[in-house]
């Protein structure tokens, strides 16, 4: 197998893959869907390489991935029940969170619409400013704020609702 030289376009994409993998997984519901989105995105990036203007490759690729996710992912989930499976074996610098907490957060995230989830993950995972999110998604900054707000409220509600059930269960 040939490994592309770091200075080539392919080499630069290769170097971005680990963090792109994290972002694609943060948008999707399963490891398989995350890898699929990553693969679709890289294919698109390679065929559209002529459109890249030579600045901020990472931002350009993230926008392509986000648009692929927004435009085509609905209803594509096949393995909705395989959630965060491989993450258990992955080396992480942080101590593993309580599995129950993880499952609840995962469930809350999966209840978000694509539009809301994309805004949230660009801010939280990618550290985008609200202005950068607006530019990447081509939406007004007011829309960014309202989506972010709705996403956060929805997650909080889901986590709270789960709490009530959890408290009632051990009877």
């Amino acid at each position, binding site marked *: *197998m*040939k*490994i*592309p030289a770091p200075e080539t376009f*392919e*080499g630069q*994409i*290769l170097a971005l*893959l*680990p*963090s792109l*993998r*994290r972002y694609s*997984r*943060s948008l999707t519901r*399963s*490891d*398989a869907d*995350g*890898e*699929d989105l*990553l*693969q679709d995105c*890289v*294919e698109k990036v*390679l*065929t559209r390489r002529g459109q890249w203007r030579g600045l901020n490759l990472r931002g350009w690729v993230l926008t392509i991935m986000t648009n692929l996710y927004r435009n085509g992912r609905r209803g594509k989930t*096949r*393995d909705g029940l*395989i959630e*965060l*499976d*491989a*993450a258990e074996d*992955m*080396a*992480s*610098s*942080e101590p593993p*969170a309580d599995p129950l*907490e*993880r499952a609840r*957060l*995962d469930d809350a*995230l999966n209840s978000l619409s694509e539009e809301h989830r994309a805004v*949230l*993950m660009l*801010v*939280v*995972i990618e550290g985008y*400013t*609200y202005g950068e999110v607006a530019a990447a998604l081509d939406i007004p900054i007011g829309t960014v*704020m309202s989506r*972010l*707000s709705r996403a*956060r409220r929805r*997650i*909080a509600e889901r986590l709270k609702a789960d709490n009530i059930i959890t408290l009632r269960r051990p009877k």
Partner: protein
Amino acid sequence: MNETNPSVTEADLHAYADGQLPETARARIEAFLADNPDEAAMVAAWQAQNGAIRSMFAGYEQAKDTDPLLVVPPRAIPSGSKRWAIAAAALVVFALGAVSGHYGPALLEKPELQLAGDETLPKQAETAFAVYAAEVRHPVEVFADEEAHLATWLGKRLAIQHLKIPNLQPLGFKLVGGRLLPVDGRPGAMFMYENQAGERLTVLVGRNTDNRTTSFRFASSGNVETFYWIDGELGYAVTGEISRETLRKVAEECYKQFPS
């Protein structure tokens, strides 16, 4: 609203929680939050969400051995030479057409057929799986107890030096055996594996006619899933009626073990 903070909006609170405010503005929000416990609790909850989300996905930021295959362009034929080939073919067709229009269409179809190498691989893998995985008594020609012989024999037929049969034991799949079968009209190898539950999967190896490399691809037909890839002179396909996630792990394991 607090008179010293006449215009703290929800947007300000989000920006504060996300660390997107300059130092001076932060102090203003902190003063506001000190006087407004409800908002302070909300902001704290958002920050906790942020932390939980980040730690949930942090583990995914890692490279895989198969990553270089992902950045191989889907069609690694240089577009220049391809265009030239089509132009040349068109010229021949045109010239022949002038003599006899009858042979034109047949000549036009030929290049299409040659391009389809990486598309026929998953189909052949699915067929082989459907036919042999269902065989109870004769799923393979040579069983795993003769593994060394199987490797030498198929290696010789495929002209692969030191063909190594992937070991999938760590993933719970034991080698059943292997057989010779045609892949794109040339000798190819099929290896079959089985787990404790009796689920089978097959690994197909075939000679690739045009020296080309593709990324990992996925094909699905009913419940049968196939991962396939072409690595230089050889094409590989991993097929099974098991979860796509398991199959992906098998494919990655095979990729690691097959010589590149």
